[in-house]
């Protein structure tokens, strides 16, 4: 049966039309900006996505795709692309000192090397054009300290007789010039990068503008030879050659220029994880503590949460609502605040805990007490969630089963172990694995509570309470500024590690479910 076009249109429900309309509107608003920035990939992607969405939602077929396409697009944009980008970055030296491209770095080194010619005079500057607007070519009218006026352009300086100009009586700045329009300050500023790049050549240097109405004679102290790919310091004669993303002195002194650029470095970031003693040395110790921290956090929070849930579940329990809301308080408070408050409570001399108990425990100062403190705080932060989950799961335990067990003469503990626990575990297991993954990378609690401290003697890279993520964060961003390449490589390795552990965990759950299903 074929539908008439009018019927087909009638079948289009208005939410779909509105949705496609919004998508098209978004594209219409975005594309001009992208074109403006010459971002052709962006344009292609936007147009393609819009076309796909419009096609899928406006044709009567493709019903399954209507549900799959938006999710797929979001998955690509927010999951696949970042992972791809991270992997891509892992093979570069991208980071502080290596953020620019090579041509940008060369230009910046040269620009940074401009020094004012020693003893040179400054000029009062007026910028002028032939037409009244600033789109065309412009020239400099320069008044030297003696009041002599010259016109400067890319070819050089031309003397201008005083009869052709009028000058400000105090500064000597040219106010009018016959045949030229003197630009206002805002117009001068509007020239932007064109003005910044404009140079009037003079003997041994060039005249550049500085600010709105002044010019100085500058000269490069760094010269780039594009053919030889070398940078020469004209003051000392030192030659620097481009290699591995930076300019290195060829005289073997090991000197490098401050600005480098981004290049691919192959597997260097990955191999440095394995070969660099500072990274590899503490790695195992940190890994063991990370796993211990994650496992103990999950077990302790789940244990306490379950215990409280069972207590609350007891039919003779009174004031259940009040207790439950009190128990949920830690969950309602932002974890950042709680963690910082905990950190100050642990203070040895001024903290609440030692004052309360009259003790002198150096909570965060010695390795084991610090680890215990971290776990204690994390328990406090995490148990309400587990309590919530368990309270819900306990409702799902079939009452008949419990009663049957009781009739059969099972003790309450036996009922709990053989009936309640398995049912709760099946529901909770995926959440426990998720909780493990979360705690495995629980950066905040470590960062805010101890920041890895205390540190064993001779190691400032890995503290006793550091977990992998806080440790790698310090490696990548602590020592020598931000090293995104290295950070990406380590993130990727962590991603693989957590993926493997989670995979093993989920397999385990499936087996568990099969066992209990029998």
């Amino acid at each position: 049966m074929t539908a008439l076009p009018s019927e087909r249109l009638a079948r289009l429900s208005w939410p779909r039309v509105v949705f496609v309309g919004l998508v098209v509107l978004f594209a219409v608003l975005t594309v001009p900006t992208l074109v403006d920035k010459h971002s052709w990939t962006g344009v292609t992607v936007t147009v393609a996505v819009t076309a796909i969405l419009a096609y899928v939602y406006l044709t009567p077929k493709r019903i399954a795709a209507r549900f799959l396409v938006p999710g797929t697009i979001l998955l690509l944009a927010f999951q696949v692309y970042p992972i791809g980008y991270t992997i891509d970055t892992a093979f570069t030296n991208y980071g502080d000192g290596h953020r620019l491209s090579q041509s940008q770095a060369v230009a910046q080194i040269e620009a940074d090397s401009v020094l004012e010619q020693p003893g040179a005079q400054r000029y009062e500057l007026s910028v002028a054009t032939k037409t009244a607007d600033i789109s065309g070519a412009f020239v400099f009218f320069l008044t030297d300290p003696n009041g002599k006026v010259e016109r400067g352009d890319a070819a050089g300086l031309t003397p201008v007789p005083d009869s052709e100009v009028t000058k400000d009586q105090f500064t000597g700045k040219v106010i009018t010039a016959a045949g030229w329009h003197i630009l206002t300050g805002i117009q001068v500023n509007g020239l932007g990068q064109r003005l910044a790049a404009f140079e009037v050549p003079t003997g041994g240097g060039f005249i550049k503008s500085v600010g709105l109405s002044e010019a100085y004679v500058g000269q490069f102290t760094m010269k780039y030879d594009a053919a030889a790919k070398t940078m020469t310091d004209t003051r000392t004669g030192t030659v620097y050659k481009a290699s591995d993303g930076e300019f290195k002195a060829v005289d073997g002194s090991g000197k490098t220029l401050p600005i480098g650029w981004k290049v691919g470095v192959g597997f260097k970031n990955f191999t440095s994880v394995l070969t660099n003693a500072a990274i590899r040395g503490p790695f195992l110790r940190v890994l063991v503590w990370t796993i211990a921290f994650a496992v103990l956090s999950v077990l302790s929070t789940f244990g306490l949460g379950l215990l409280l849930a069972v207590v609350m579940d007891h039919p003779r329990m009174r004031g259940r609502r009040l207790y439950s809301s009190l128990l949920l308080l830690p969950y309602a408070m932002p974890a950042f605040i709680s963690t910082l408050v905990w950190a100050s409570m642990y203070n040895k001399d001024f903290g609440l805990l030692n004052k309360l108990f009259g003790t002198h425990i150096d909570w965060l100062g010695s390795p084991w007490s610090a680890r215990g403190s971290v776990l204690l705080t994390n328990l406090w932060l995490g148990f309400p969630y587990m309590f919530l989950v368990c309270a819900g799961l306990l409702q799902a335990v079939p009452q008949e089963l419990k009663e049957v067990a009781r009739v059969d003469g099972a003790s309450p503990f036996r009922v709990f172990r053989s009936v309640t626990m398995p049912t709760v575990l099946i529901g909770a297991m995926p959440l426990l694995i998720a909780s493990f993954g979360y705690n495995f990378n629980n950066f905040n609690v470590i960062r805010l509570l101890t920041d890895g401290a205390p540190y064993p003697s001779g190691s400032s890279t890995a503290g006793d309470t550091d977990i992998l993520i806080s440790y790698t964060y310090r490696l990548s961003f602590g020592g020598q500024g931000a090293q995104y390449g290295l950070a990406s490589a380590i993130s990727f390795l962590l991603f693989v590690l957590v993926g493997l552990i989670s995979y093993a965990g989920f397999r385990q759950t499936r087996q568990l479910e099969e066992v209990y299903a029998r």
Partner: protein
Amino acid sequence: MVRYRPSLTTAAVAVVAAALSLTGCSSSSSKSAAGSSSSTSSASSPSASGSSAAAAASTASSSASAPPVRDPNTDLVIWADAQRAPVLQQFAQSFATANGISVSVQPVSTDLQSAYVTATAAGKGPDIVVGATDWIGNMVQNGAISPLPLTAAQKGAFETTALNAVTYNGQVYGIPYATENLALITNTGEAAANPATFEAMVANGQAAVKSGKASEALAMQIGQQGDPYTAQPLLGSAGGDIFGTKPDGSYDPSQVGVDNAGSKAFAAQLAKYGEKGQNVFKRSIDADNAVSLFTSGKTPYLISGPWSLEQIRKSGLKYAISPVPGFAGLGPAQPFVGVQAFYVSAKAKNTALAQEFTLNYLTRKDVEEALYKVDPRAPALTEAYNDVSKTDPDITAFQAAAAHGVVLPQIPAMSAVWGPLGIAEAAIVGGADPNTSMTNAANQIRAAIAKG
């Protein structure tokens, strides 16, 4: 990232941590944020105070959710940290009115330096950024700021230390407007001000503790991670240094001095006054509680900078400011002298206006004096300083405390120092062996510098 002043205020940590959680830990070290914000309102949150932490976290959520975006509607855009921005807006505004343009000063509360570097690389940065001079090395190596061609007369008008602090690789990169350094602040109700030596100060402090006036002899922030910025005056007194200098006076990253004889002499003093010794240096005193210990009268002596003055004045205590005393028989204390400065972006959209603003407006005496009035710190312009010091004895006292000061290093290698040196300091105070701790720290610093 450069860890400027590792005074981890709870506020800064919360702010940064919030940002980290939202950006997947891609932002850079929180320490630099702590440093930058500490310059204005450091250590303002007393420990165990839920309310201040709550305030911190609320700013965290609001600022972290919105990464800085350049205001597109004005001619000149300036980025500054959240405390300074409102103050600067007034000045920028009077410049704007005079030139018939519009200007906006945007506050960036999370890690301004790295936000600036990242935004500039993407072409979305401001025209001008305001920050401490130890940012220079990193901003230069990322091609984020441009040299400023000051005339010889303009250069001569600045205090020498201020000018040195903005000079890097022979170029002037910023316009300094205020200098800051550590000094000893005394609660004159509890102990005598201006002790001649460190030993005399400790004796005074311990006497105050004995008589029940105070509970701590001295508040010098250390924390579990150490604090090399606050330790520097005493490190210098013992003859130690962090980097040696090249013939031209600039720091040489190949000469790490952390394990030289002077630095080890300092380490010995750390142990002597540490938790296993006289118990004057304590890891339990950190950036969060040092100032509040002082303002609550629990200690007669505090080593801190002009950023804590506001809090101290508010407390109503009678206080006096004097140089940090050196060890008896050793040299005078050598605090770091840091400078707050304005930088012009290498990718500024309004270079001409930005240069005009920094070179010809901010270098004026009346402007520097007006800046002082809203942010009371020693002006970097000599004439402005001379005027201001006539009416504000605190400024003079801080300046006097900087007499033997050394410039806070701008070289990027400095970021490799804060961590290892701080941890060594904390370990020694906690009872670790001074010599091996310093040797280990030096080796780690050298390794990190060689790798970078």
